[in-house]
């Protein structure tokens, strides 16, 4: 018997390796296949669609915060222009994070740009526009060195007859001006909650994730306009609770286990825990401790105690500062002047944390400053 079970085990493990849908990150699985699928970014998508129709493409520069669909859009566009087979020979995707530097630009990019355009077969031509140029996608272009960028300048012009470039970056200011002026720019806005909400709901439905009310809202809150982060979070949460579709099939056989059912539902609490977001109660207790009372010494010792507890609980100081900022700045209890000073103190704290200062002292310092500011303004 054990012999058979072992056989079964090894074969199933092989199957998981090759084609288990669960192994694919949902981010990849639900990447839009055509421009129509791209959620929001109406402006950019509209312009790009028109270029697909007339098959002429300018050099492009996509910029915007992470997770707004820049890479997805260009991949979808390439897919629509060339189709999956032809795309292999027509599209070069370079990731700046592992291959950068001037030698790559000189060799790899130039060689690809220089190469003759491959001929599409009749079948491909019937299905896709197949325009007579190649596409080079430079992802994370803002982490390319200045030298590498300036080496691109001439290359972009010389081979513009047969090659189009698409630069993708987070910060448009890090792209040197000569390159930026050669491209038509597309700004990608952070996703509006409405569109992202619909997208997440679709994914949940397709994956059969069970979730309690408010989960999607809290995922979006934690992701802050970054759809990739939102989807990753959702997947981690679903994995953690084991609440995906194929478990459900097993479930239908024994409807008895109600407790188990409950544990397989994604909860708001777990989303908060996974995203590293500090619960509002913790933040509120810190802010309460910082609000000045008439007795200074008592005030200070409660503050000190509160900070010590929060730090020992392992919350990340960066996240704490971010959420303290949100709580204080959007609160109606303080006047503009006090808020100004608080923001200045927060920016100083942020810099210090980034430089690697001790979290305990830095957070304590911030709250003591906030307390002082509030005392003065009252």
């Amino acid at each position: 018997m054990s012999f058979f079970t072992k056989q079964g085990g090894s074969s199933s493990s092989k199957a998981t390796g090759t084609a288990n849908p669960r192994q694919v990150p949902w981010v990849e699985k639900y990447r839009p296949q055509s421009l129509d699928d791209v959620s929001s970014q109406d402006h950019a998508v509209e312009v790009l669609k028109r270029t697909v129709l007339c098959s002429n493409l300018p050099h492009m520069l996509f910029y915007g915060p992470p997770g707004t669909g820049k890479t997805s859009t260009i991949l979808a566009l390439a897919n629509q222009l060339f189709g999956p087979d032809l795309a292999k020979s027509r599209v070069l995707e370079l990731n700046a994070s592992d291959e950068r530097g001037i030698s790559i630009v000189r060799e790899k990019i130039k060689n690809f740009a220089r190469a003759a355009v491959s001929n599409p077969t009749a079948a491909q031509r019937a299905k896709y526009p197949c325009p007579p140029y190649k596409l080079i996608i430079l992802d994370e272009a803002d982490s390319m060195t200045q030298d590498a960028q300036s080496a691109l300048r001439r290359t972009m012009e010389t081979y513009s007859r047969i090659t189009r470039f698409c630069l993708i970056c987070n910060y448009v200011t890090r792209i040197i001006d000569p390159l930026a002026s050669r491209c038509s720019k597309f700004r990608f806005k952070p996703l509006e909650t409405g569109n992202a909400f619909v997208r997440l709901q679709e994914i949940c439905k397709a994956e059969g994730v069970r979730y309690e009310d408010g989960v999607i809202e809290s995922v979006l809150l934690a992701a802050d306009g970054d759809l990739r982060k939102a989807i990753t979070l959702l997947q981690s949460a679903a994995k953690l609770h084991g609440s995906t579709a194929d478990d459900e099939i097993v479930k239908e056989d024994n409807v008895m286990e109600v407790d188990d059912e409950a544990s397989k539902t994604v909860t708001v609490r777990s989303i908060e825990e996974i995203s590293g977001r500090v619960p509002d109660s913790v933040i509120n207790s810190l802010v309460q401790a910082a609000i000045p009372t008439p007795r200074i010494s008592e005030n200070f010792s409660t503050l000190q105690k509160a900070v010590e507890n929060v730090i020992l609980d392992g919350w990340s100081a960066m996240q704490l500062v971010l959420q303290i900022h949100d709580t204080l700045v959007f609160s109606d209890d303080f006047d503009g002047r006090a808020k100004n000073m608080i923001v200045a103190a927060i920016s100083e704290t942020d810099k210090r944390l980034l430089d690697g200062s001790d979290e305990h002292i830095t957070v304590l310092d911030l709250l003591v400053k906030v307390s002082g500011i509030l005392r003065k303004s009252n």
Partner: protein
Amino acid sequence: MSLWVDKHRPKSLDALSYHSDLSTRLSSLASSGDFPHLLVYGPSGAGKKTRIVATLKELYGPGVNKIKIDSRVFVTPSNRKLEFNVVSSVYHMEITPSDMGNNDRIIIQELLKEVAQTQQIDLSARQRFKVVVINEADFLTRDAQAALRRTMEKYSPNLRLILLANSTSNIIAPIRSRTLLVRVAAPTHEDIAKILSSVAKKEKVSLPSSLADRIAVESGRNLRRALLTLESLYSQNDLLSPDTPIPTPDWEIVVSSIADDLIKEHSAPALLKIRAKFYDLLSHCIPANAILKTLLFRLLPKVDAELQSEVVYWAAFYEHRIHTGSKVIFHLEAFSAKFMRIFEM
């Protein structure tokens, strides 16, 4: 004979005594067949490593406990040779790339790619992927973290990473969004006291509960420190009674004396004396930020309420300077001088 800390370290997830919901979550992850990249963070002595080792055991079985240490040699682009120690078992590998300072990027690129490109050799292994545990991930340079970013996506079929860090502040956002964050909070005083008495029972030592509570408070919610304290108390005293004094480490005594000096006398000669003490501490390899932090928390109870906020302000200011500057002694001295001045005013 090993230390009690190691001897009584829990070996499996169900033997862990506190944060039981975290343990169940980890074990459900380990048994689900798929495993995400993890970023485990929390203060030191909270049990991050213990949890990870237990999770690995849950993933692969007892094979992970057979470890060996290899010394590997890497060559930088500028032809410098680097020696690097790797702790590994058949299934996993444990590295501390921050040992290499600015060259950690090369380790990350070379070593991880090498691991990722080879498949699991042992066909009877329970998981197809291998796990690489990266210690002190918050000390990785930006370059190394950027290199990690692509590797994590590209080689995800063969490789899972577990990053261990004290805080997520220094980890770049792209990595944070690719990993499952696991927070390990420090154990509470009650948790520590309970563990201390259970260890004492196993070692057949009589430990009064009031002493256990005191050790727990003294340790600052650091379990490792609490256990070490207990062991040293046991070896120094024949019999543990409720009022056995808990020795403070030598360097903390020196820091306390510096705090006393600072309160007592405010003059240039006094500063000179304090300077000698600082040098003494630094030459014994006590990190400067630890000195400043301890000094701050020794000073705070001794000064008036109005001054406290100012002391905290300057402590934070000079602590930041320590990290951005190059000579730590300057900033420690500057803090002392500043303190004398604001205390006088």
